[in-house]
């Protein structure tokens, strides 16, 4: 375990270094001259392009540009949005709560449903319930989120009118931003009517996004649980005549839950990125719509910064998961 931790921790800077190199070089992937694009396109006067080139440091050698990029990152400077003129780090922090709210809601809805499906399937292996649960999981993994989003909006917002569509709150509603999470803020403000409104706005996008964790959790837990149930120690426990309830719920499920930690850690950052399409359909003001707006307005500083932010979050989350997995499972802890 100590060897594993050391290896993972030693590799972390290497990976992060590589990530910054890629986001740095991404700006040079853009066809044409970034200075010209930043200065306003092919019609920009040559002196403006040169001024922009000097301002962006693009007249410097590549390694100097990279070092100054790295220097700015270390000081927490992710650059300035060309479009709004605000600091990208500020804008990311403003939009992060909306994305987190959506992803966490999808996890809260999705993981228990998926876990229930997985357990049902594993305990009734190769019977109707098992086939149904596995088919549901497979179907869930095959549905494009943006299409599902359109269908849900059509059915629940347009046809039935049960849930509102677009943004996090009703128009003109406002709440003092303390945490940035509308639900938490409205509770803190004591405005429970608004909390209810916010929950209704959250419902459809969260359900759409929850399909991924439902399907993945169900499949993962079904396989882990089924494998655990056929392990020798379970056979021994049965031979000793222990009650089936004890065997299934206390022994097998507990061991099958372990890999779920890995899944959770991979799910959250994956949802943050996967939410882009869902956020766009629901006009949800999170990082996904932010990224897409930046792409459409060719605001490359923002694209670069959001990509870096999500990648670093992804790397750190998988590190935490790997390490916590080691802490939770004695077999991993003791090995090496």
């Amino acid at each position: 375990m100590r060897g594993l931790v050391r290896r993972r921790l030693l590799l972390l800077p290497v990976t992060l270094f590589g990530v910054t190199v890629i986001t740095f070089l991404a700006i040079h992937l853009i066809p044409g001259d970034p200075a010209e694009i930043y200065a306003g396109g092919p019609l920009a006067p040559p002196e403006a392009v040169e001024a922009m080139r000097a301002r962006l440091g693009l007249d410097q050698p590549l390694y100097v540009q990279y070092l100054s990029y790295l220097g700015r990152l270390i000081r927490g400077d992710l650059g300035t949005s060309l479009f709004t003129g605000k600091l990208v780090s500020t804008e990311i922090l403003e939009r992060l709560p909306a994305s987190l709210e959506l992803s966490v809601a999808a996890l809260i809805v999705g993981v228990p449903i998926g876990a229930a499906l997985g357990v049902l399937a594993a305990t009734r292996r190769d019977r109707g319930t098992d086939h149904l649960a596995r088919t549901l999981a497979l179907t869930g993994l095959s549905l494009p989120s943006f299409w599902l989003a359109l269908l849900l909006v059509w059915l629940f917002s347009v046809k039935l009118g049960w849930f509102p569509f677009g943004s996090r709150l009703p128009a003109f509603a406002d709440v003092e931003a303390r945490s940035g999470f509308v639900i938490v803020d409205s509770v803190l403000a004591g405005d429970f009517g608004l909390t209810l409104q916010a929950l209704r706005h959250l419902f459809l996008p969260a359900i759409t996004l929850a399909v991924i964790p439902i399907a993945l959790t169900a499949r993962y837990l079904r396989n882990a649980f089924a494998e655990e149930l056929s392990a020798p120690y379970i056979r021994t426990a049965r031979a000793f005549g222990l009650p089936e309830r004890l065997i299934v719920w206390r022994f097998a499920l507990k061991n099958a839950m372990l890999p779920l930690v890995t899944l959770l850690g991979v799910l959250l950052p994956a949802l943050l990125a996967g939410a882009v399409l869902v956020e766009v359909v629901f006009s949800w003001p999170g990082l996904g719509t932010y990224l897409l707006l930046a792409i459409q307005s060719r605001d490359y500083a923002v694209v670069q910064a959001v990509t870096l932010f999500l990648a670093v979050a992804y790397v750190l989350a998988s590190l935490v998961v790997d390490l916590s997995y080691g802490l939770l499972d004695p077999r991993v802890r003791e090995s090496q």
Partner: protein
Amino acid sequence: MTVAVGTRVGAVMGRLRRNRLSFLGVLIVMVLLAVVAFGPLVWRLDPIQTDLADRLAGPSLAHPLGTDVQGRDLLARVLHGGRVTILIALASVVVALVFGSGLGLVSGFVRGWFDTLVMRVVDVLLAFPPLLLALVIAAARGPGIFNTVLAVSIPAVPRFARLMRSQSIAIREREYVLAARAVGLHPARILFRHVLPNGIGPVTVQASIAAGIAILEVAGLGFLGLGVQPPAPELGSILVDSRTYLLQQPVAVLLPGVVISLSILGFNLLGDAFGDVFDVGSGS
């Protein structure tokens, strides 16, 4: 020789028959490929030709699925769109498979600094969520078919590389490789005649799964306006075109989505089928 091949095919069919879902996967993918390959040859209406006098028409003999907001035949658009989406997705998988497996094959076989370098690059690429990487590449390179292939294939390279590398490492220690070395065969010959054919099984499983993901990404990029550009039909861009007219022409939103979902499902199940055939892992 023929006997050996015959029994092998028989065994494969036997395994497929035992797992009905895998069989369904093979079936879906075959029907899908046939429909997008031959559909546009049979139903010959132009998917781009507009007819503003016949906008948002219901089903008729001339247009069995009706027309879209610009009076274009929906059946023709979905057939051509399916062809475009699936061709781009499969091309991306082939590119990723060739590059990724090639890198993995060599780096696992030669080890040393080359292996270390390749694996660190793979680690870095894996640090980006695949959809995010595809999005950013598509955004940087601009829309279009070639750039979509690039955007979808690059995020898929690392998984092929890792998989083939582990196969390569395992196989280079086998006796027949040692024997081949002992006879003094050229390393390239050993690599392509012995290591590659014996390690390719799990790669086919990965390729199927990657095809499903690629279809999702191609359609997603089209949906966001970063993939294939209108008026060329592509399932994702047909969807986004039609979303405003969902109430008047629901088929235009329903059908492309059904085709996308079915193809992803088909390729995922096909992956299971390959897993059965090559006896990779133990799904059930």
